[in-house]
């Protein structure tokens, strides 16, 4: 299988989908030159400036116009630049995109994709570092996926573009240059299909995106101590593959849920409830969580490191469960 990095895999997905379907277009700030993370590089050369549209710094209009276009027959792929700036288009995402189909009794479809480059790292500071997926998981009417590998990134983005509903795909900034095998043939990854990234028998670690890598690292470290960790990557949060989570818990009876965002009212908090609800009788220990403290992301490296969820915390949590 060819090896490519996460960003190139997303780029491939965009190219494949734009070739397949003339209704697909990309819009965002500075995307013609592939900024900010190279994902849209080369698209303008192949598809022209009508389908690869640099927009003014007008997030509300970028996202809102995409809804208008999606309602009337186009298939927009919006580059949010940094997911943090979705705050500047929150009405458009939460009140307009998420609710249009439902409020209008199913008359209107909204087949658009929001690409959300996000996440902590490299001292980007409080306005460019946040994990905001919980806001949208908590917004009925949006589908939400979070790839952790290049193959999943390509497969999920393709699925998101083809999906008849609005899909947010969270692309962690730290993953863009991570390499991985990507199938040579066109491969889609369905929504609602978790993937077991490492099989194990003692403890299930549930993680998405960057935290999958941390979970795999933790599993290596735990293996040296004789603890067998299974790493389950839900890949999409809405819809959620509950069955794969249940099957894993039925095997391991212990669960660590790891995420990058803050503790309070988070995706991990919700997943813990899902596990508790469907697997209560299987659990041999309380569910453990790894997440960031409830503070904004600080700039200075020692403080940023302090709030960055990492493998060591997963190891500590798993050890505790095994006691």
């Amino acid at each position, binding site marked *: 299988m060819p090896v490519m990095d996460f960003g190139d895999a997303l780029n491939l997905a965009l190219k494949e989908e734009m070739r397949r379907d003339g209704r697909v277009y990309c819009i965002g*700030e*500075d995307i*013609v*030159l592939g*900024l900010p993370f190279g994902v849209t590089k080369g698209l303008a050369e192949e598809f022209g400036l009508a389908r690869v549209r*640099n*927009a*003014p*710094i*007008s*997030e*509300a*209009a970028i996202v809102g116009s995409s809804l208008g276009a999606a309602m009337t027959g186009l298939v927009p792929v919006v580059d949010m630049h940094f997911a*943090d*700036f979705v*705050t*500047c288009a929150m009405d458009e995402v939460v009140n307009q995109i998420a609710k249009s189909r439902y409020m209008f009794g199913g008359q209107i479809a909204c087949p658009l994709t929001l690409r959300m480059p996000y996440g902590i790292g*490299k*001292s*980007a*500071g*409080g*306005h*460019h570092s946040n994990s905001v997926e919980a806001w949208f998981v908590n917004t009925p009417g949006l589908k939400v996926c979070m790839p952790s590998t290049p193959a999943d990134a390509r497969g999920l983005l393709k699925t998101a573009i083809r999906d008849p509903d609005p899909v947010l795909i969270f692309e962690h900034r730290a993953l863009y240059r991570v390499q991985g095998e990507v199938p040579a043939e066109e491969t889609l990854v369905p929504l609602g299909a978790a993937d077991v990234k490492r099989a194990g028998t003692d403890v299930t670690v549930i993680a998405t995106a960057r935290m999958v890598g941390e979970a795999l690292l933790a599993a290596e470290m735990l293996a040296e101590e004789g603890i067998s960790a299974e790493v389950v990557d839900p890949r999409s949060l809405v819809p959620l593959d509950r069955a794969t989570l249940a099957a894993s818990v039925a095997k391991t009876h212990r669960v660590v849920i790891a995420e990058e965002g803050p503790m309070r009212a988070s995706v991990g908090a919700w997943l813990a409830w899902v596990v508790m609800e469907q697997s209560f009788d299987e659990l041999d220990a309380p569910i453990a969580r790894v997440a960031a*403290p*409830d*503070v*904004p992301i*600080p*700039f*200075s*490296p*020692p*403080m*940023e*490191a*302090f*709030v960055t969820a990492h493998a060591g915390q997963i190891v500590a949590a798993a050890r505790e469960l095994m006691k």
Partner: protein
Amino acid sequence: MVEEGAPTPAPDASHARIARAMTHAPGPDQLLQMYAAMLRVRRFEERARELYHAGRIPGFIHLSVGQEGVAVGVGAALRRDDYLLSTHRGHGHLIAKGGSLRALMAEIFGKATGCCKGKGGSMHIADASVGYLGANGVLASGCVLAPGVGLSIQMRGTDQVVAVLFGDGAANRGPFHEGVNLSALWRAPVVFVCENNSWASTTAHELSTAGGSIAARAAGYGIPGVAVDGNDALAVHAAVAEAVRRARGGDGPSLIEAKTVRWLGHHEGDPQAYRPKSEVEEGRRQDPIARLRAHLEGAALLDAAHAARVAQAIEADVEDAIAFAESSPLPEPHHALDDLFVHWPWKD
């Protein structure tokens, strides 16, 4: 002055009138201070650039080399107790407002002695001690804070003003329009200053901005709108000083568009493939510092020896700030948990 509801004069006519009036023309001391302030910004940014590439400054930084005329034109027209709201490209704005070089340098180094204790960094700096209410990592967001600062000034009954800086790209966000409208509605003491360097990252001004002129947008809100040469610190100062006079006098907000040139990349590390080198070369010929220097020399306010002393003093200040930043401690990791709330006795 423009009456409420009256059409706004065309930018050029208005500018010419302001330039003619020159009621706020700076005296010799202030001219020399403005020259020194621009040089201070320039040297700070140039040294920050070197230190960034030497790996001493984390994150990413947006430098304002070439744009000093705007920062200092604005800063010199404000009092120390006036307020300033700034942008991601804000080092120069803070320096021009009288901020401490030490606290600024330490902050962008991520040190505990920085003005935000290392929590903010280059794009998110505030220094309340000089009324600098914050750089901003989110473009145009300051524009909607400004009417509130103005309201506070009105309700507290002081004669302060607030200036808010934003880029040409940021002027295409809704908060710019909402902030100008609300300020005009409230006759709030706000001076909107668009720093138009003709680029928003890789996107050219004319490809993103319908109508071209930011200043002309003032007409829609019934406030004065003027375009000035941002490479001429005195022109910026004259326009801002007039806007400040109006604001202090209760005549409400103004909008100034200062046209300037960004000599460096959008951020450090930007390869700038999207713009011709000639553009920067042309920009360098309009160097705001050289221009004011020529003006000062022409007026016999500055000679080579004096200029050398000024440069030397600034060099010493900047090196002192660097030494301070270098020798300052990093924050303790757990200081990440401090400063979230004023009041938090709970163990949650």
